[in-house]
């Protein structure tokens, strides 16, 4: 089963990743350019948005794959994707370890 590939599936997941990477690049570039002209919080806020988009990209990629697996009635891999999503969410709940 594993070597079975659906071009549409690959394309959708690739689109998610490319959107995240290019989006992050342009947002961060905008932050840097803004920083040339403005000081203070505004450039930093833009750069923070870029970081958040980058952190969100892998999560969205897993959600999209999960959705596609369930839609294809490929239950096993749908549940596996849901498991990966759960682990990613775990990090948002138990992230603090400041000492």
């Amino acid at each position, binding site marked *: 089963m594993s070597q079975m590939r659906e071009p549409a599936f690959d394309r959708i997941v690739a689109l998610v990743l490319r959107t995240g990477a290019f989006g992050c690049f342009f947002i961060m570039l905008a932050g840097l350019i803004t920083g040339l002209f403005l000081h203070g919080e505004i450039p930093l806020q833009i750069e923070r948005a870029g970081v958040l988009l980058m952190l969100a990209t892998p999560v969205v990629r*897993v959600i999209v794959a999960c959705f596609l697996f369930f839609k294809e009635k490929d239950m096993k891999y749908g549940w596996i994707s849901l498991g990966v999503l759960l682990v990613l969410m775990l*990090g948002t709940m138990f992230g603090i370890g400041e000492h």
Partner: protein
Amino acid sequence: MIAALLLVVLGFCAGLLGALTGIGGGVLLTPILALHFGIPIRAAIGTSLVAVITTSAASSSVHLQRHTTDIRLGMTLELATSLGAAVMAYLVGYFNRNALEGLFAAFLLYSSIMILSRGGKVKSEDATQPENGEIPPYEPKRYPLGLSASLVAGALSGLLGIGGGPIKVPLMFIFMDVPLMVATATSNFMIGVTAGASAIVYYRRGDILAEIAAPLAVGVFMGSLIGARLAPRIHTKVIVYLLVGVMLYLAGHLILHLWGVKL
């Protein structure tokens, strides 16, 4: 402002070297941020993770369009890599700075020795391009071994802010009977989620500095795009030795730093 420009240049060089040699740029970014930009090592790890995710997302989308990525295998192993990465990223909060710098120096030395012992060969030729568009049929084997090793690879990623490709590619290729080009693409695919799992934990702890991550990611992104274009036309062996030289220098510098010697 000059610092931001330097970070773009640093990211560019790391991205370029990473794309040319197949060794992720994260290995260089963390120690350089810690040693030359005065960033605490934990924040250096968290910040270079952002650059690692950006590179993985960009290059993985290219592999996906060539249909060489095994999403099912990748997703299955990600169960283990992301768990290892998240748990280790959490534990790193309890490590002191010296332990992290020592571990990083040891990792750089180990990687350098591994590359040198293989005579500077880090990637198989054309491992990413399907020959006449055909992937031989295969069935991944030994899932228990694959999952256990992925847990370790994920933990290393969370600990050092690296992608862990040098573990995952041979694991899939040698032990799970996956063709090399699929193993390479799938490893690349997994890096985003693995690094993402630990980056979320670093972010929540305040260990990702946006003002450092932004110029770095911009540089890495451009460097790896250009590197990927140049890779087929460039003799990589010289670049690999250059990379090993930088890695050895950084390992030595980290060790001196641990002993309190100022350069």
